C-alpha cells in the first residue's frame, strides 16, 4: 500500500481511532466516553476500508456504531445520574502497568516476527465470498453463532423481566 491516499487515510484513521480510545479513558463523563467510543468504532471501520474489507467495515458501523453503542447508551440512561462518572478503581495503577506490559509485548511481537507477507493486491469483492464461506466452510460456527444470539436474547429478556 504505497499510494498517497492509503498512507494519509491510514495515519488519519489511526490517530482518530487511538485518540478517541484514549479519550474514553480520559474523559470524566460516561456519556462523553461512550460518544468517543463510537468515534473509535467508526475509525476502526475506516481502517477496515483501507484494508479493502468493505463488508466487514459496513458491518462494523451497523453493529458497533449503530447497535452496541446504542445499547450502551441505553444502559447508561437507565442507571441513576450519580452512577454516570467514569472514575477509576483502586486497580488503576496495576491496570496501567499490566496494560502497558501487554501493549509492549504484543507490539514487540508484531514488529519482530517475520509475518511472511504475501505480495498480493486488495480483495476485489468480499461480500459474496464471505457469504459463501459462511454457508459452506463455516456453516457449523454460523449455526452456533445464531444459537448464541438466540440464547443471549432469551437470557437478556429473562434477566431484566419484571415479575
Amino acid at each position, binding site marked *: 500500500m504505497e499510494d498517497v491516499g492509503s498512507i494519509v487515510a491510514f495515519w488519519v484513521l489511526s490517530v482518530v481511532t487511538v485518540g478517541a480510545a484514549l479519550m474514553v479513558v480520559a474523559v470524566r463523563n460516561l456519556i462523553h466516553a461512550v460518544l468517543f467510543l463510537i468515534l473509535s468504532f467508526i475509525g476502526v471501520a475506516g481502517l477496515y476500508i483501507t484494508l479493502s474489507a468493505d463488508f466487514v467495515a459496513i458491518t462494523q458501523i451497523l453493529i458497533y456504531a449503530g447497535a452496541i453503542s446504542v445499547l450502551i447508551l441505553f444502559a447508561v440512561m437507565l442507571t441513576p445520574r450519580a452512577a454516570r462518572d467514569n472514575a477509576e478503581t483502586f486497580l488503576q495503577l496495576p491496570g496501567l502497568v499490566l496494560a502497558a506490559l501487554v501493549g509492549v509485548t504484543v507490539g514487540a511481537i508484531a514488529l519482530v516476527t517475520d509475518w511472511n507477507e504475501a505480495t498480493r493486491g486488495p480483495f476485489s469483492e468480499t461480500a459474496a465470498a464471505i457469504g459463501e464461506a459462511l454457508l459452506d466452510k463455516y456453516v457449523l460456527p454460523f449455526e452456533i453463532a445464531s444459537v448464541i444470539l438466540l440464547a443471549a436474547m432469551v437470557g437478556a429478556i429473562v434477566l431484566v423481566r*419484571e415479575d
Partner: protein
Amino acid sequence: MTMKSEPFVVNVGPQHPSTHGVFRLRLTMDGERIVDAEMVMGYLHRSVEKLAEGRTYTQNIPFTDRLDYLSAMSNNLAYCMAVEKLMGIEVPERGEFLRVIMAEFQRIANHAMAIGSFAMECGVWFTPLMWMFRDREKILDLFEMTCGARLTTNYVRIGGVSFDIPPEFMPAATALVKELPERIAEYESLLLENEIILVRSRDVGVLPPELAIAASTSGPVLRGSGVMWDIRKADPYAVYDRLDFDIPVGTRGDCYDRFLVRLEELRQSVRILEQALDMLPDGVASVEVPLALRPPAGEAYARIEAPKGELGFYLVSDGSPHPQRFHIRSPSFINLTPLRDMVVGLTIPDAVVTLGSIDIVLGEVDR
C-alpha cells in the same frame, strides 16, 4: 422484581403547546407512568369577579365575553339571564329565539374548536383543526353580520339582544345550516373511523360516572361518562322546551366517548337551529331597560348549558347599580378538577389527550 427508578417531575406548561393557554400540569413520573399530577392554575387570573363588583350590571356584559372567549354568546346569555331573574324582566319571544340561535351557533363553533384541538392532541398535523376553522369562520361571519364583532360579541343584552338580525342574516344562516350536516359527515369520515384516533383515545382517561358526578362535572365530560344530564332538558331556559332534540351520551367515559358526544352535539345543534330558524317569530327582539339598572336587593342564580358544561352566574344585589357579589360557576374549571384521577397511571401522551378531551379555556378557568 421491579425497576427502582427515581421519580422525576415534568412540568407540562405553563409554556407548552398543548395546554390551551397557560395551564400548568405538574406531573410526577415513575419512568413512563404518571404517579401524581398537580394542577397549577391562575396564570391568567384577571380578577373578573372583583372587577365586576365595581361596575354596573350593563357594563359587566363585556367581561363575560372574555371568560370563555370561544363561546362569548353563551356567556352573555347566562349573565343576562341572571340579571333578568334578579329584575324579573320578561324577554320577548323573538329575543329568546335569537338567543337560542346564537347560542347554538356558538356551540357548533366551540365544539369545532374542541374537536379540532383534540385531534391535534392526538397528533394530526392541523388538518382537522383547519377544516373546523372553515365552518367556524362562517359562524363568526354570521356574528359579525349581526353585532359587528366576531369573538367578543357582547350581543345578548339584559332584556333581549342588542340588535335585531339584519335582513341578510336569514339566508346566510339557512344556507349554513343546510351545509353543515355534509361537513359533519366529512369530519366523521376523517376522524370517527380513524383507527389511530380510536386506539389513542379508547379507554384512555376514563372518568367513571360516580366520580364525574362527585366532581360535579357537566357538559360533554359528564355525558361522555354515560350520565344523561343536560340543562336544556333538566331546567329548560329560553325556548328549549319547544324544540325537539336528543342528548348524546357515551358509555365508557373515555376520551373517545367525550369526542363522540361533541361530534353528535354538532348534529343536534344543527337540528335545533333548523327548527329555531323556522319558528323565529316576528316582533321586537328586546324590551327597553334603563342603562343604570338598580335591581331590588336579593340574589339570583341562572344557569345554561354552555358548550363546555353548566355555566352559572350567581349575583347578589344590595339595591345599588353594582352587583355586591358576582360569582361565576365556570364549567372549564370544574370539569378540570377530576383530571388528576383521570391521568394517574397513564403516560404523558395519554395525559395530553385527556386534557384535550376535557376542552378547557384558560380565560374561564382562571377568570
